């Protein structure tokens, strides 16, 4: 599963100028950020669905609150993404 050739190449890049390490860090960081955001928004969506199922008349208000909470969480997930993009951009620029 692990190809030793790729590992060797990455390590070599890491030694050279830190470029490989930066690419590795940025990519892994973006993936980890998505885990947190996805879990949080999934939990909100789940509770919203449960509460709408219990009380369909409150559906409109619950939906609006769900959308707002999801957008707030997405906001700081995008912070992490922007930091990763900045790290990659420092490489290119």
């Amino acid at each position, binding site marked *: 599963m692990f190809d030793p050739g790729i590992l060797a190449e990455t390590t070599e890049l890491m030694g050279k100028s830190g470029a490989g390490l930066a690419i590795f860090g940025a990519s892994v960081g973006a993936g980890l950020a998505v885990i947190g955001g996805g879990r949080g928004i999934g939990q909100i969506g789940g509770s919203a669905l449960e509460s709408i199922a219990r009380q369909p008349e409150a559906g409109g208000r619950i939906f609006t609150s769900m*959308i*707002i909470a999801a*957008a*707030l969480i*997405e*906001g700081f997930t*995008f912070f992490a*993404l*922007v930091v990763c993009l900045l790290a990659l951009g420092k490489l290119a620029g």
Partner: protein
Amino acid sequence: MNEMATLLAADSPLDHVVEHPIAQFGPVVFTNHMLMVLEAAAVLLIVLPLAVRRQALVPRGLYSFVEAICQFLREELARPLLGKHVDRYIQYLWTTFFFILACNLLGMLPTESLVTLLSLGRLKHLGGTATANIYVTGTLAALALVMIHVSGARQQGVLSYLKNFIPHVPWPLIPFMYVLEFAGALIKPFALAIRLFANMLAGHTVLAALLLLALASRSYAVAGVTVLGCAALSLLELFVAFLQAYIFTFLTALFLSTAVHPEH
């Protein structure tokens, strides 16, 4: 026809995401995002007044759409938060919402591609998403910052506003609370700017990445499926355009309400 095929293949899809200079007047560089801000302003200053010019008792068409949005923003968003002060701040909130919405939607129109295609490659980069630029969203957030604190100070008087800035804590904690609230006052508009900027940038970047996949695959089948995926993603982007404008306006109204009516 050969020329057109070369044109379409020449631009990288990431061109839609980045800012490009299109003119230079002395030391001032005029970029395509600045052009899009002017276009959004033109839409709001020319199209909207024309739409609401014929004030009938029963509105129809674009007038009805605009009025429905304004009514929704005032009654469902602003009034529960601001109470009786709605009419003082609603014009600023309406302007924020419609400006961000106009910028986001103008970014979804493929104006730069069409103009490049029809002018056979002479006029380039006459379009883009203004809100995918951190300086545009940063300016909107800076205006929100000024609006929030000046409104709070005018509503309560400067000394009373500063006293009510922090919640009630025992006296040794007061300086620390001021530091915390001051940091919060700077971070909240910064978060507004980054949220809008990153949402717009990420949307267009994902579309660009999918199109790069279509180009790199060198097969019509993969390219066809990818283009259909891009169309579906563009529908999501239209939803995100409305949602982000709503979220920005909602959070501005929320911060205004905590500045104007502090919780005792």
